[in-house]
């Protein structure tokens, strides 16, 4: 773990994934587990946590949702971003048949996990869900890694219509999944935690919470147990997570 201060990375290139989302590639690698996060700082603008989307080279997926992400979107090749981390605990490849579930922007850290899993010759199914087709991200990237990709949209504008849990349950019911790994909205994760219990499948769920210090001291990012009864009380997304690794029930 890198402890001391910030390191500079320079933007190498940026590509649009949809109208509001950029994939930012930086000029050097970062040594990290898939699912770990960094604190990205732009002096004078602020600091926010981001999942690491790629390690070699270091990459972030950034949705333009506020002043900080907007400033990241304005970066030009050669511009610097200040990075603290990697921080927290990430995903681990366990088993030969992985089901990765990404809700909207949650697909970013899962792509890094898919890369690791494919390197270890595991079979990977990536189940990507969003409200509309516009929110489905990185499908081609997962496919290029040799993953089987399933799409679900709430409005039916791409893939099958419905909540992502529908597709997940069908796949879990086959009894072939060794690990369910997911990142996305907390409501989706709560539902997936329930499905993992129901089908006795180990799960690794990446939770989000408001992060301040990012170092396990300030207590801001406590994830309430009400979201998943398996979460230990006082569980901190930055310090204990963001990935909660639950063996099967």
């Amino acid at each position, binding site marked *: 773990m890198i402890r001391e201060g910030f390191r500079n990375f320079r933007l190498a290139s940026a590509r649009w994934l949809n109208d509001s989302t950029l994939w930012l590639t930086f000029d050097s690698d970062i040594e990290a587990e898939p699912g770990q996060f960094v604190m990205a700082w732009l002096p004078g603008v602020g600091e926010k946590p981001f999942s690491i989307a790629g390690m070699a080279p270091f990459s972030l997926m950034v949705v333009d949702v506020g002043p900080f992400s907007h400033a990241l979107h304005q970066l030009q090749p050669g511009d610097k971003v200040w990075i603290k981390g990697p921080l927290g605990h990430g995903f681990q490849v366990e088993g030969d048949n992985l089901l990765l579930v990404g809700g909207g922007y949650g697909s970013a850290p899962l792509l890094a996990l898919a890369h690791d899993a494919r390197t270890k010759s595991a079979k990977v199914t990536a189940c990507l869900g969003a409200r509309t087709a516009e929110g489905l991200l990185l499908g081609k990237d997962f496919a290029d890694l040799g993953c089987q990709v399933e799409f679900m949209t709430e409005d039916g504008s791409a893939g099958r219509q419905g909540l992502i849990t529908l597709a997940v349950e069908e796949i879990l019911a086959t009894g072939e999944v060794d690990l369910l790994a997911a990142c996305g909205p907390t409501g989706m994760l709560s539902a997936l935690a329930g499905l993992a219990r129901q089908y006795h499948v180990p799960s690794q769920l990446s939770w989000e919470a408001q992060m301040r210090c990012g170092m396990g001291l300030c207590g*801001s990012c*406590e994830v309430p147990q009400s979201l998943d009864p398996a979460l230990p009380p006082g569980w901190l997304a930055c310090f204990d997570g963001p990935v909660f690794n639950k063996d099967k029930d």
Partner: protein
Amino acid sequence: MELCGLTLKNPLVLASGVMGTSATLLRRVALGGAGAVTAKSCGPVARAGHPNPVMVDWGHGLLNAIGLTNPGAEEEVDLLAATREELAQMGVPLFASIFAGTEEEFAQVAGVIAGAKPALIEVNISCPNVRDDFGTPFAAIPETAAAVTQAVKRAVGEIPIAVKLAPNVPDIGRIAAAVVAAGADAITAVNTMPGMVIDPEAAQPVLSNKTGGISGPALKPIALRCVAEIAKTVDVPIIGTGGVLTGRDAIEMVMAGAIAVGVGSAFWYRGENAFELIAEEMKAFMMDNGYATLSEIKGKALR
């Protein structure tokens, strides 16, 4: 061991401001081996704190300016009341911590928090991290430190109070004497030390607040000196706080004159078992060196 009439299973106290923001986190630290836990400081009204970055590890310590994030005394009292009994059953006393901008506000917040019957109330007159200088003047001047102490003591009745002093004062012994004369039952020494970390590539301070409080290893020698000066001046229990990461650090605090030892940044350096590790290391040190009780080593380095 005993502190202000309270029984602690070990002398290690969770320092205020670390992990103490919810009932579940306080319980977690208690289960992790703390002798007592202190909730995060609360003031008269809710505060969101400073924008990020609020903390950095600069290699020799931490610098933080969280900015006294708290839900306000009215909500805090419910948190404390809900937690106190459960912690008591675990044999871990719950300490409250309060701050305010004026002597009257201190008395008011203390009165509200007393309603939750915490085992002890820490009076934070020394947080360095708020722009409008909440607290700093109180800890810097003996008369104002004493006035706040007296006002709080009057408002809380029988509940013992520990006044938390600032390290950056010219004569901490005088401040300690003033607050003890005004009714302090104990002293917490010390709060973080004001400092700044600059990122040269950014050509600006790292923290959004520009300055913050130094904790961790860099604070320890300063804290030891403060504890020693206070111990030479007054005869109340001292909770020695600042840069305690190991059992040896904790022993040094006791040898400087503390009877209890605050632990905070150690979570970052040693992980969630920090309390257990430090307690075990203290015991091992004492056994190896032929000490049976803490009182044998209390102030030993000053004699």
